[in-house]
């Protein structure tokens, strides 16, 4: 019987069938961060339970830790230090790996799990963070959970999980210049809605996906959760194998050969049946930006803010009206006439090396508009070092961007730094009300669009400035 990638991954990890669609699934890797991991570790301590396999559990500091140069344990987030210290204390007690603030491997959890070879193709991996689906780009079964489920995974090396249905999205045709992986995934979410993936594991496929390098694939899978999916995944190919080869925690020598042979089998077989298949014509994708407070509220940068009444679904019309009131945008407004106050390049969606190179290529010899605060926050300390070796930091700073230490930073406002009350063009994943600060108005876009908009001071494509 031809099998889907999801079936292969699920069957590889199924310890027991629990009836219905439920299975007891083996968890190969658990990752924690100081925001939600601290509470999971503390919960276990309070119940007197141990981490069953501490060598397969990892923790990093990304959510609360400051990204300003010269940082330490003190964060601008109120009580931030409590989260950092509690996490450090519990991680050491539990005997799990900790990538602390000053560790060369520190960075955003989903970025460092991949670049260190901690999560590899075919593995199952969980983290109490919704963007864990990012790691599906390796051909892993990786999904976000709550803190209570994290306690369960830590204590038992397993989770009780309901088998998702299978969806394949085929990206056919080729993209036009200036269109990035971010535009592809935003276009998909806008086309089918932010609930289209509910209950599904979504396999992204088609030539345009396999043409992307790993950094672009992480961007695609990262936003699977923004269409409501259980997770996203991309079958491993030679790009994937080259990416993980020689990573610090990846297998070496004969073990590597054995692993690579196994990874090459991890793809949906010819003739495998999916519960749902969607197709996206890449030629129709434009550089895009959101106008509302949900990632599905999207338009091409050359487009205008839509009429709320133009939506067939009354719920969508209502949502559009509320979003436009919050965003302070009138229907019919040209997106290119929208003036911005701030520009942010960062987050687990878009702050890997290729993202920074894309933005820096545009910024070389240009300046950020005088009224715009612009920040670039690399995804990991390793990416930051590599970017600096390539001189990207100098390009960003010469253009007027702040160059930060690695972390989640202003992807969300945790009580410290804030874009409150301002309009931001952002390479992140969520434009929810108040996400980047009280009253902050977020427009999601690619790093290239963020760089171009920062220079013109208005939402712009790379051709505009």
């Amino acid at each position, binding site marked *: 019987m031809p099998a889907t990638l999801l079936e292969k991954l699920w069957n590889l990890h199924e310890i027991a069938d629990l009836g*219905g669609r439920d299975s007891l699934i083996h968890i190969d890797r658990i990752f924690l961060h100081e925001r939600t991991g601290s509470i999971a570790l503390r919960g276990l301590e309070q119940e007197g339970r141990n981490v069953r396999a501490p060598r397969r559990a990892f923790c990093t500091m990304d959510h609360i830790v400051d990204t300003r140069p010269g940082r330490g344990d003190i964060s601008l987030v*109120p009580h931030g230090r409590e989260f950092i210290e509690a996490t450090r204390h519990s991680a050491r007690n539990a005997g799990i790996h900790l990538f602390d603030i000053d560790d060369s491997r520190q960075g955003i959890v989903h970025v460092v799990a991949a670049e260190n070879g901690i999560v590899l193709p075919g593995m199952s991996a969980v983290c109490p*963070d919704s963007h864990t689906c990012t790691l599906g780009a390796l051909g892993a079964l990786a999904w976000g959970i709550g803190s209570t489920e994290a306690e*369960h995974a830590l*204590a038992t090396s397993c989770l009780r999980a309901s088998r998702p249905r299978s969806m394949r999205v085929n990206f056919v045709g080729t993209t036009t210049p200036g269109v990035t992986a971010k535009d592809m995934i935003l276009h998909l979410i806008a086309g089918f809605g932010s609930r289209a993936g*509910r209950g599904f594991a979504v396999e992204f496929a088609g030539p345009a996906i396999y043409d992307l390098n790993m950094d672009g694939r992480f961007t695609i899978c990262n936003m699977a959760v923004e269409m409501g999916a259980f997770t996203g995944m991309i079958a491993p190919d030679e790009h994937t194998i080259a990416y993980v080869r020689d990573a610090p925690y990846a*297998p070496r020598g004969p073990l590597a050969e054995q692993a690579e042979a196994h990874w090459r089998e991890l793809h949906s077989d010819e003739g495998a049946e999916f519960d749902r298949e969607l197709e996206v014509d890449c030629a129709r994708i434009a550089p895009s930006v959101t106008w509302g407070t949900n990632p599905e509220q999207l338009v091409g940068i050359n487009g205008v803010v839509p009429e709320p009444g133009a939506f067939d679904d009354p719920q969508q019309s209502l949502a559009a009206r*509320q979003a436009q009131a919050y965003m302070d945008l009138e229907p019919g407004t040209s997106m290119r006439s929208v003036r911005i106050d701030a520009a942010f390049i960062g987050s687990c969606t878009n702050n890997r090396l290729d993202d920074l190179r894309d933005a820096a290529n545009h910024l070389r010899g240009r300046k950020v508009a005088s009224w715009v605060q612009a920040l670039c926050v690399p995804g990991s300390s390793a990416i930051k070092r590599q970017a600096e070796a390539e001189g990207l930091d100098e390009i960003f700073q010469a253009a007027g961007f702040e160059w930060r230490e690695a972390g989640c930073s202003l992807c*969300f406002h945790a*009580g410290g730094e804030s874009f409150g009350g301002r309009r931001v063009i952002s390479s992140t994943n969520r434009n929810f009300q108040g996400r980047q600060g009280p009253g902050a108005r977020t427009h999601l876009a690619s790093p290239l669009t963020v760089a171009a908009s920062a220079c013109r001071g208005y939402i712009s494509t790379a051709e505009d400035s």
Partner: protein
Amino acid sequence: MTNARKQVFHRGIAAPLLQPNIDTDAIIPSREIRRVSKEGLGDALFSGWRYRSAESREPEPGFILNQAQYREASILLAGDNFGCGSSREHAVWALKDFGVKVILAPSFGGIFFNNCALNGILAIELEEEAIARLARWVQADPGGNRLEIDLAAQRIRWREGKEMRFDIEPARRSLLLEGLDSIAATLRRESAIRVFEEQDRQSRPWVYEFPDR
């Protein structure tokens, strides 16, 4: 997972919050998470909408849970995709601390949906039309028109003699009815887990043995 509490039957005031895509950032903004704790988060529930400013905590009179007839609400009638976004379980802990026992919505964010069951909150998926019907009845007299949720019978009872059935997966239902400790239940399968790992180690040794830096 010892947070689950038995929940068999509930009767209470229902508040309609019908717009779609109410995300966990709206349920509890990240800035409200100030302690490594699951307790005392009810005050922060919906704080971006409920208060004129986060600092003053002065109630925003227009927000539904500030209106006298809904202040004691323990049931939410919600829109599509309720609880989407961040995995933060604090959203569920805040709802629970406020006193919410049951949420009805056409669909839920997946992680939020699991978090609810693990904390004794009953999240029921119900058609949009059915929720709208309940909302119209409740709004006519919020204090008097109380909903009854009977998990054992899988029934919602409303207007005199009217009821509707709801579906729930058996595992989720028994978790809520019996308040099971899932960790203890899984630990009882330790021998099966060990056998799985021994076999898996033969075919995928790199999962278990790796350079330890």
